């Protein structure tokens, strides 16, 4: 294939990766930014979203779109509920101590993964996309559903941005992120904000998973890669910076596709990871963040 169409394809693929990554990473970034909690189980919330999407679509049957839409609403709600319970039962009682929460979320990772294996099984299971439309370009065909994932994700990101910047909820969250003690003094129920943010983070991961599951099946180990990539995105983008998270997700998603045009994929991953690490070393506040407080 010629360079131009090849680049176009790599870019489209990069956009899909970026779109899903941005949602997932945004969830991690919120938890990270507001609560200062490194949630190692974030990838498992992602996995849970996909597995539940499979369960819901299978239970509903009928036209694929019906099941998919139901999954898109119900699955994130369930995952959010589970996250809320975990937060109340464990993280809150640890007083959000950074090291203790890492261990606790590693524990959650094991528990969720094992439960998925026990009740869902080890197989990769497909979910039918709500519609199958193949867009025919002169050089290759492309999935219409993938394009819709990009659009949906963009809409959700804009919605999240509006909530964070234009509503009281967003203000409360930002105040808590900036200085939780002062926020508390101003009558903000920091404790409840933390619970909500942790649940919201999980909800975002679950939505991302429901969007991706018609493209790549639900599998009980599928949470590991998104976790790693989300970490990278959050760090590159800068803590708690929505704009940074999105730009970083684009950067990571696109570079993953485009670097692999020129190098063997493993070498591409080595180069990309090394580049990101070097960014961190020489610009620890991220590419878009301001210096840490």
């Amino acid at each position, binding site marked *: 294939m010629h360079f131009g169409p090849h680049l176009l394809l790599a870019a489209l693929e990069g956009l899909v990766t970026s779109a899903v990554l941005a949602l997932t990473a945004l969830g991690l970034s919120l938890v*990270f930014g507001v609560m200062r909690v*490194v949630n190692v189980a974030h990838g498992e919330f992602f996995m849970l979203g996909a597995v539940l999407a499979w369960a819901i679509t299978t239970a509903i049957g009928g036209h694929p779109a019906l099941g998919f839409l139901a999954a898109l609403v119900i699955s994130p709600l369930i995952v959010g509920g589970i996250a809320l319970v975990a937060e109340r039962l*464990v993280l809150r*009682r*640890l007083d959000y*101590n950074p*090291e*203790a929460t*890492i*261990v*606790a979320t*590693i*524990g*959650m*990772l*094991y*528990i969720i*993964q*094992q*439960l998925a*294996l*026990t009740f869902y099984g080890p197989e990769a299971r497909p979910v039918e996309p709500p519609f199958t439309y193949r867009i025919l370009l002169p050089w290759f065909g492309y999935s219409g559903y993938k394009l819709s994932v990009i659009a949906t994700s963009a809409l959700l990101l804009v919605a999240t941005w509006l909530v964070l910047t234009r509503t009281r909820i967003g203000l409360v969250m930002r105040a808590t992120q900036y200085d939780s003690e002062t926020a508390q003094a101003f009558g903000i129920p920091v404790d409840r904000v933390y619970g909500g943010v942790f649940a919201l983070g999980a909800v975002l991961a679950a939505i991302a998973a429901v969007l991706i599951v018609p493209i790549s099946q639900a599998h009980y180990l599928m949470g*590991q890669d998104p976790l*790693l990539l989300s*970490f*990278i995105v959050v*760090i590159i983008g800068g*803590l708690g910076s929505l704009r940074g998270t999105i730009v970083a997700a684009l950067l990571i998603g696109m570079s993953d596709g485009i670097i692999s045009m020129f190098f*063997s994929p*493993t*070498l591409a*991953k*080595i180069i990309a*990871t*090394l580049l*990101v*690490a*070097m960014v*961190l*070393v*020489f610009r*620890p506040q991220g590419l878009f963040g301001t210096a840490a407080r």
Partner: protein
Amino acid sequence: MSEASPVKAYALHAGVIAFLFVLSFVLPAYYHGLLARILVLAVFAMGYNMLFGYVGLLSLGHAMFFSVGLYGAGLAVIHLGWSVPLAFLGGIACGAALAVVIGLLALRTTGVAFMIVTMMFAQVFYLVILYFASWTGGDQGMVVPQPARVLTFGATSLDLTDPTVRYMTALVLFSVVLLITLAIVRSRYGRVLVAIRENEERTRMLGYNTFSNKLAAIVVSGAICAASGAAYALLFGYVGSSFASVQYSILPLLWVLLGGAATTLGPLIGTLFMYYVTDVTSAYTSAYLLIVGIALIALVLFFPKGILGSLRQRWLGWLP
């Protein structure tokens, strides 16, 4: 506190080593073999503890130090035909050299960024192993040939695949590293490391170059972890990329947190405990990860300082 009862501390450590020595003669074969493995991995945990427990630097990439020792020693035997002692020292040297490079870069960052940077360097290391599959065996790994795994002293030779020899070799390595750790912790240098953990700026203002001290700690930590990896390759005969994966970076963190960070014996206790829980639960259910997960959460909820850390806090203040 730090000056209190050195005799008790030394006696305890000597007692632990003696106890492990005696265990070699009373344990049933399975636990004997398992304990040899645990001793080697406890060295990995001790190396991790040196950095995480005493200096307060939380690395999520220590699998690379373990596996650079593993591959350094293993590949030296496989491809270069080195003898066991030479390969072991080679593995340690690789670990120390890698630690210098990683330290110079990663120590420019702190906190969460340090965690992520170390994780990413470890990921790069993992991918490099996969990339040079013709040398490393890639994801399948390679076997260190059994005939090469012999320690020769003049006329006598010790077969490292013999269970007793293997146990004793592992115990010697463990004891040496334990005593080195104890010596470092009780030394002036150990005091500086703890001071850096507690308040880095103050330590600089007391005349210490905290960067070079931290760098030295990473090198010591990396060399100890590499020693563990090298011993693993030579004693158990397999090198493979799974030892360089993220999982093996998280394991030493768990072991140390369980046993008690910044305690000399905590890494052993944590490794032992984790293996014990896994072994017992896996006999009853294949869902043992569930139980491990619950155990982890319960431990941080109720024993946040780990087993020995909690003991030290409540009853045994003199514990090093």
